């Protein structure tokens, strides 16, 4: 399998990179880890005239805790860097665990969090937990940067709010928060190298046994990762019981619109949503950020 011809640029600064994108026109694309875009190019789904490699923008690799902003993850942080980052594990182990569930070791060493978001496939593993934790992204363009909640970032299958002709996703930020627990549960056909058949993330804020707040996000069961608002409302303000979590799971089924494909039927996915919502909530409530 060979790649079509393209021009290659490796700018030394973010400003240079966004200027290049604007100048090169509509068929230039950003290259981060390459684990998605090179596959698309090999399969003939994409034939960019130029690739703008971000490999020299080392500042976009950092993962750090900022007392005001929260956990700031550079867009070029690889999945394995997120898995192994002490600060990420300490603050939101659930995110490190979600990154660990993604693809296989070789891909996790190259693939980046920014690429995972911009690629915007419905079954992506990082968006559900990021949305549950209320994360936002920073999009940098030639005229400055804008922030956007991850929840609003996705606009359809493989579509997102980033303008590929002028913008680069530079960081993902999880704000400081009172949540007491969060988790992401994935069902894939294998433990490694498999897309999610269903992925459910939950983040809860507890006051003793009472659920003060809950955010649930479903992956792989709609054209984009989607909040299960009705399932959250079932919980808020009530003392948690196994029965209440089951009711929330049933409500989550009403929030999704899964397709049938080779990985699972729509009916099967709906049932997984019910069960995984219940399990994710119980883990987040009883185990913290795991």
């Amino acid at each position, binding site marked *: 399998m060979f790649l079509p011809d393209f021009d290659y640029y490796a700018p030394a600064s973010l400003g240079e990179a966004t200027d290049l994108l604007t100048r090169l026109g509509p068929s230039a694309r950003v290259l981060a880890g390459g684990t998605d875009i090179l596959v698309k190019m090999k399969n003939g789904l994409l034939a960019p005239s130029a690739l703008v490699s971000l490999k020299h923008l080392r500042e976009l690799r950092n993962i750090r805790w900022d007392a005001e902003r929260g956990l700031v993850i550079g867009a070029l942080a690889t999945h394995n860097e997120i898995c192994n980052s002490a600060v990420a594990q300490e603050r939101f182990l659930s995110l490190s665990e979600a990154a660990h569930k993604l693809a296989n070791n070789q891909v996790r060493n190259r693939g980046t969090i920014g690429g995972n978001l911009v690629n915007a496939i419905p079954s992506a593993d990082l968006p559900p937990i990021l949305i549950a934790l209320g994360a936002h992204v920073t999009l940098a363009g030639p005229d400055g940067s804008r922030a956007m909640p991850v929840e609003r970032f996705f606009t359809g299958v493989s579509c997102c709010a980033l303008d590929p002709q002028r913008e680069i996703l530079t960081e993902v930020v999880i704000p400081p928060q009172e949540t007491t627990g969060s988790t992401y549960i994935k069902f894939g056909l294998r*433990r490694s190298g498999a897309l999610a058949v269903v992925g459910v993330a939950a983040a809860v804020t507890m006051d003793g046994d009472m659920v003060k707040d809950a955010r649930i996000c479903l992956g792989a069961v709609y054209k984009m990762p989607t909040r299960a608002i009705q399932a959250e409302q079932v919980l808020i303000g009530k003392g948690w019981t196994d029965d209440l979590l089951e009711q929330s799971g049933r409500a989550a089924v009403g929030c999704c619109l899964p397709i049938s494909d080779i990985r699972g039927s729509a009916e099967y996915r709906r049932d997984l949503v019910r069960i995984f919502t219940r399990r994710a909530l119980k883990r987040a409530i009883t185990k913290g950020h795991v």
Partner: protein
Amino acid sequence: MQAITDKQGVKRYLITLTVNGDQYSPVIKANTLLVNLLRDELDLTGTKKGCELGDCGSCTVLMDGKPVDACLVLALEADGCELITIEGVAQHGELDRLQRSFIDNAAIQCGYCTPGMILSAKALLTRNPHPTEPGVRAAISGNLCRCTGYVNIVKAVLDAAEVKG
């Protein structure tokens, strides 16, 4: 990075990378994949090509110590990197313990997955000299063996780890 455009207008780039301790300065096109640079230009054909889509791990090499699929890395992105391929695992004509252990445990059947398996295992043992069995299974889970030989491969890696201990 120096770029050279020939009379036909084809652009090539001069990169420098270290492979198995030797420095190379190949002149390559932008669309050259690392796996093809290794196999076709540097004649290091121990790195295999399987699915070429990042699923099978046959083309696993160590890039700055980490296992990556060489089919999903542009050669240009490896500019300035240190690579280890299966040809660089044996030292001074002596097989590495891991390689010896693969032979002793009959962990090789057709052999096509073996270079990738050994490099994934090598990266694991460098990071963690005493892995558990689930740890070994996780480390090689990005490498597919279609002869269904995982049991002996896992045994081989655990044996090599013990010898090293």
